[in-house]
């Protein structure tokens, strides 16, 4: 452990080869090993210094990622001329030509047809900054709206979705809590620690119509009538009011898949997977 830390703190310097390469790129051919070493030490130190200053700009910019802008600003406060030329796409923008005893370097500029430029549609304007308000909490309770993160912690969701049968049903709260205590003590602990004031999970009772609809759809999906199935799939793909029933459908599918997997009932599996693809239509996402 201590070893590791020490490793991390040891000063790292650029290899002398890169110094040589850079020297050659500006036309200094023969650089001695000693000067290379001295240079690389100096350069490494300066780079570290600039990186440390750039970090300040990142912190004040309230970001987690260091950008090239931060480095530009760090150079600026060190009174170093900023870096130019990042816009050039190629390393050397010049072209060489010789002929008639003359040698020329020139910028290659292609002829552009103005009418092409005029006729091409304008690129999309980037969206402007907008302000959106939502309730993060109402009287200390976080409402379950799309703007807020899901009220159930991610681990819980994971167990719920991977083992739907074990998911805590409202009626069997007691049993469930014992179960989760056994398996996922850590997640329960985290939850208790953070004192999450989440809305208690409410039972989403389906209306009679929805229950009927659910029954019809599920039967049609795994039933034998091809026309009915097509109709059902069409319906779940386009119906905008399925939001509430989505979890039930997914439970149905996952349970179905696990059941049919056991009996090698491929056709059923195919039907179910078809319903998944339809459910995942972009309308819903």
């Amino acid at each position, binding site marked *: 452990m201590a070893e590791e830390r020490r490793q991390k*703190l040891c000063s790292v310097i650029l290899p002398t080869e890169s110094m040589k390469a850079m020297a050659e790129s500006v036309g200094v051919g023969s650089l001695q090993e000693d000067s290379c070493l001295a240079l690389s030490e100096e350069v490494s130190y300066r780079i570290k210094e600039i990186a440390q200053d750039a970090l300040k700009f990142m912190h004040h910019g309230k*970001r987690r990622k260091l950008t090239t*802008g931060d480095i530009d600003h760090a150079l600026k406060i060190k009174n170093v001329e900023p870096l130019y030329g990042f816009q050039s796409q190629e390393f050397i923008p010049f072209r060489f030509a010789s002929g008639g005893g003359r040698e020329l370097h020139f910028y290659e500029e292609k002829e552009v047809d103005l009418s092409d430029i005029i006729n091409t549609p304008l690129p999309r304007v980037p*969206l402007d*900054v907008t302000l*959106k308000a939502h309730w993060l909490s109402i009287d200390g309770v976080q409402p379950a709206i799309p703007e807020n993160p899901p009220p159930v912690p991610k681990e819980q969701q994971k167990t719920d979705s991977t083992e739907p049968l074990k998911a805590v049903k409202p009626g069997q709260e007691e049993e469930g809590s014992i179960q989760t205590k056994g398996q996922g003590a850590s997640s329960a602990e985290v939850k208790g620690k953070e004192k999450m004031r989440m809305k208690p999970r409410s039972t989403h009772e389906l209306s009679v119509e929805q229950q009927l609809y659910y029954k019809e759809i599920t039967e049609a999906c795994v039933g034998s009538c091809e026309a009915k199935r097509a109709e059902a799939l069409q319906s779940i793909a386009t119906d905008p009011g399925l939001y509430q029933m989505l979890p039930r459908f997914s439970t149905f599918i996952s349970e179905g898949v696990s059941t049919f997997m056991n009996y090698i009932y491929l056709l059923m599996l195919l039907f179910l997977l078809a319903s998944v693809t339809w459910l995942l239509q972009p309308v819903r996402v």
Partner: protein
Amino acid sequence: MAAVQDGPMELDAEKETKPEILSDGTSNLSGNTASGTLSSSPLTAAPAGGAPKMEDQQTLIAVLQFLKRNKLTDSVEILRREAGLGEDQEDSLATDGSGGGKGDGDGGDAHSLLSRVSITSAVAPQNMPVKRADDQPDVSVVLSAYSQQGDPSLYQVYYSGLKNFIESVLDCHRAELSQLFYPLFVHMYLELVYNNHENEAKAFFEKFSGDQECYYQDDLRVLCGLTKKEHLKGNEALLDFRTSRFVLRISRDSYQLLKRHLQERHNNQIWNIIQEHLYIDIFDGMPRSKSQIDSMSGSLAGEARREVNKAKVFYGLLKEPEIEVPLDDEDEEAENEEGKPKKKKTKKDSLGSKSKKQDPNAPQQNRIPLPELKDSDKLDKIMYMKESTKRIRLGPENLPSICFYTFLNAYQGLTAVDFTDDSSLLAGGFADSTVRVWSVTPKKLRKVKSAADLNMIDKESDDVLERIMDEKTASESKILYGHSGPVYGVSFSPDRNYLLSSSEDGTVRLWSLLTFTCLVGYKGHNYPVWDTQFSPFGYYFVSGGHDRVARLWATDHYQPLRIFAGHLADVTCTRFHPNSNYVATGSTDRTVRLWDVLNGNCVRIFTGHKGPVHSLAFSPNGKFLASGSTDGRVLLWDIGHGLMIGELKGHTDTIYALKFSRDGEILASGSMDNTVRLWDSMKAFDEVETDDFTATTGHIHLPDNSQELLLGTYHSKSTPVTHLHFTRRNLLLAAGGYNSQ
């Protein structure tokens, strides 16, 4: 007894330097001009008394050289005659002097001597004005203190000898003496580097860097990059370390133990460092425990000296101006309809009587001249009182609702946010140099009409304020262009007519919210300005930046009224005390300082943060201060006693926003980890027992009760919280820019 010797000497030096600093006549405040700028100047640390005769002569030579260079021949002659020095003698001495520094050029050494001369002003008073021109700490003079050295190969032996000793002492002393490790380590390493023992320095670093406390990791990272003498020049981190003596608080028993050990072993190397570079604050009584020490340490220059936090601070609130609340007929009728007019009246009375009492801890009403209330301000005050009667009383059982304002499509460019006090306007500073103002009420933002149109208006009409506005310009948001770098701080004036913004381009700009144009650009910082804030009474504002000073400005002066200097690194955030007499600043040197606006003195230094401080908040009663840093902890401070009184752990990333509810019961903190957390501040303040002992010694016992104090955690999807604001009715507003990935 380093502590005892140094006290008076430093004070003298301070007195000397004070009058020269900043004698600009722009100050319109009563009292003297800004001072305290040099209180921690490195020059005070240079040897002043007890120098051998040789050094005196060298000093003289240096003065002579300086005078010659500036062609002050008369002075040269006079000085030479008085000192009885011949010309040859001078030359020979000059070469002698330069021989002292190994491999250092003549110029460098003479220069270092020169700058030393500038403090021993008694020798050559005539060169004072010239030298004073640059009061920057001079690197070479600072470093020259490292030139005496022992055998480089023995450094490891010295250090490990001390380490063994400290590890073998009694448990109660070990924690205290362990504080020595870090400063000694740094100074010994720098000494090795300064004297060109690169390999020894590296070996020394590798051997002992792992032993240092984890919260010094950032500094060690900087340090490990320094391997050459040339690197030391112009390195700020080093200057900070060297110019300010690292302060340690050690009990008398532990100190005696250490002293005896070092004397027995004749370990002069370490003893010299302790004498020269450390300040040991010795106290009588029980040694402190490890946790007590850990809670206070972590700052760049050790703990605050005890006497620094002894000055009296008038933390009470100013008396509210008496405003007769006119009985607004319409409103009264409305209340009548609701059927509770009587209740309202009694409430008003109670409010009135409360504000009439004078707080014994409050400063005098005119200690700082404050702007007079305008009619519009009075109207606003009345509105405020009305709103506050409808305020929800918060508490652990009654948590506030939080409304989150998310900036969409900001592309990680949102850098600062502010709300007006009445929560009607919202301003955002962006990395693309713009400032945007939104109206969060249905009332749209309008510009004032052009001058020609204004002429046509009937100025006698009652609704002239309405008539001057140009309906055609009404929109929900306005963009202010003017800065040439990312905007790091924005602040509304209390009357909502102005907006301040501070930017990377080194300026603070004042914008009019009537015309939506820039009125003034305040230049002075020259480096990025990290934060700015208006005084709660308007007119004054404070700014702090990369140049390590905070400045106090008045809107009608283009030069600062006060410069608050003393921080050892960037000033990252600045906040006004509710009574406007004090300013709190947080810094990258991991300290929070409180400054007196009247005389520019630093009256409190709070140490204990383990990372740069990025947010500050005063409690509404002015008694307490909360500060949040990159290490994800909020620390609570009692301003009157100058003590840390609480530590709130829970956040996992930098805390960028802190705010107390209007009555001070709840502290809200917002962080980079996408959460808003609510803390029971009443409980945190109540549980502190400030008996006389803790107050005098400054030793604190912090209960580890963060979990009990945490009232709620609210996650946003992917939006770091940049700003928090309680409306006058105690609804919490949060703001931040959405991160799409």
